């Protein structure tokens, strides 16, 4: 498993009688561009929450770069290079955009527990955070409070925070969800330009995005992996068309 960025073996999660993840054997290659698709309620976000440690699995193991991380805390997993964005924004709404990203960068740089210096005077951290805002073209809003920004721009702050952690594995949970079409173009561009060293797993409903971005696609249905393969194979797969693409076209 050493050349894999992330893997799960026989991962299961039950809420009482309800099984939301069943024997998931998943592999994310180093530098992957991998998409996870499936109808609503297939268990995609649950899967992400299991990987990041927000939820504890009922059984099975999770591996990050060959190391078993199943019993580690969320924070310990982040320190080992696992970053994520949320389907619904999880931001510090009352703080400025720059401060949002500064918090993440400071945490990664190990400077966030300092008590005897002023936060803003840590130039290296603040300037790195600002650099990320520039890269994502939201530097103009750096001093604005997050809650004052339109939703699409807030989505970019989500991504900026995740990148501030310098992840080796980045989990993007519907990055373009809820964003109007004209603003989603910026988000797509940002995702396209992510550094090639980062292994990216993206959950997305927008099939144009998925097929443009992903080199591997995994389809989940009812907590299990239905099929995995290259985009062309997935598009041609009859079962996928039945459970997902067909349903999507009607919906």
């Amino acid at each position, binding site marked *: 498993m050493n050349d894999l960025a992330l893997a799960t073996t026989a991962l299961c999660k039950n809420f009482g009688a309800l099984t939301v993840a069943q024997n998931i054997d998943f592999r994310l290659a180093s530098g992957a561009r991998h998409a996870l698709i499936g109808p609503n309620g297939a268990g995609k976000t649950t899967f992400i929450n299991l990987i990041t440690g927000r939820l504890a699995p009922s059984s099975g193991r999770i591996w990050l770069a060959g190391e078993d991380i199943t019993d580690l805390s969320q924070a310990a997993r*982040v320190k080992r290079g696992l970053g994520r964005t949320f389907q619904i924004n*999880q931001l510090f709404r009352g703080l400025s955009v720059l401060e949002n990203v500064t918090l993440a960068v400071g945490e990664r740089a190990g400077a*966030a527990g300092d008590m005897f210096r002023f*936060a803003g005077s840590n130039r290296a951290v603040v300037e790195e955070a600002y650099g990320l805002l520039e890269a994502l073209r939201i530097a103009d809003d750096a001093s604005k409070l997050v809650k004052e920004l339109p939703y699409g721009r807030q989505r970019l702050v989500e991504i900026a925070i995740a990148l501030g952690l310098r992840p080796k594995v980045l989990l993007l949970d519907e990055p373009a969800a809820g964003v109007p079409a004209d603003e989603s173009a910026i988000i797509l561009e940002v995702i396209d330009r992510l550094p090639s060293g980062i292994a990216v797993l993206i959950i997305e409903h927008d099939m144009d995005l998925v097929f443009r971005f992903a080199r591997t696609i995994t389809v989940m249905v009812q907590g299990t992996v239905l099929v995995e393969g290259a985009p062309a194979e997935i598009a041609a797969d009859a079962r996928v068309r039945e459970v997902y693409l067909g349903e999507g076209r009607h919906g």
Partner: protein
Amino acid sequence: MLAPNPTVAPVEQLARSHRLRPLELAPWLVAGASFYVFDIYLPLGAQILINVLFALSLDLILGYAGIVTLGHAAFFGVGAYTVGILAVHGGWAEPLTGLIAAGILAGVLGIVTGLVILRTHGLTLLMLTLAVVFMLYEAANKATHITGGADGLQAFAIDPILGLFRFDLFGRTAYLYTLAVLFIAWAFVRLLVHSPFGRSLTGVRENVTRMHAIGAPVRRRLVTAYAISAALAGIAGGLLAQTTQFVGLNTITFERSGEILIMLILGGVGRLYGAFIGPPLFMIAQDTLAKNEPVFWLFYIGLLLVLVVMFARGGVLGLIDTLWAWFVRRRR
């Protein structure tokens, strides 16, 4: 991002955000002037300063870290009893070391209780903070041979400060001593809330889910903040014991926890200076009303609180912000 790039405005702005503004000196000017102008009220003045320190300690956890508590008097009381017990039973009457002992003991209690109760949130947490203060109250009530029970610990002497300044009948030494301790505590808390640690506490208050997801050790940060706040509250309690030379059960009650919360809310939560406005306002109102309306004064205190809740949710400082914003809009 290297040298040739001129430092950009938002980065500069953040780097300057902790700089001392002239208005932040106002409390110290007022407190200093009060020493001369209101010299017959100095004992009340010292009590106000003690409550400012107590409210400041509460603001650190409530306003910055978002920890709601109705048990903060547990730490205040432990600090007060530490000073009293050391003086009565241990013959330890040196004030500065007594105060340090009060802070350490309260801080340790903060760590121990924090490790247990900060696993919870919301109402559960609120109930657990109450449980802590009730348990300690009952312990102080029952352990009469140590604490004096309902009679408290009375009329113990405290040595002169630094061997030089005796506590006098007019409360001059007590006032200046309390003011000096408060000043040091303020400088410390101010540094703390502007530090990366303080900003991360604000992060926890704003969005704990996100804090976990950026790899922050959330519980450790909260327990640390709780312990620091507890130590400061303990020092405030120790000051009360030293300046009044009495420690009673009323230092460790639910009522005192609630009252300091009300004072902080009155001044404004999460802004550092609400703690400097609420206690004087509340205590002067209480003192004046109790004198002029001995029967009805609690009604007016209640009325004051209703008005704050209805028209000034952010406390006095929040109201000033709102009015200032309105004034600026009008002028444009």
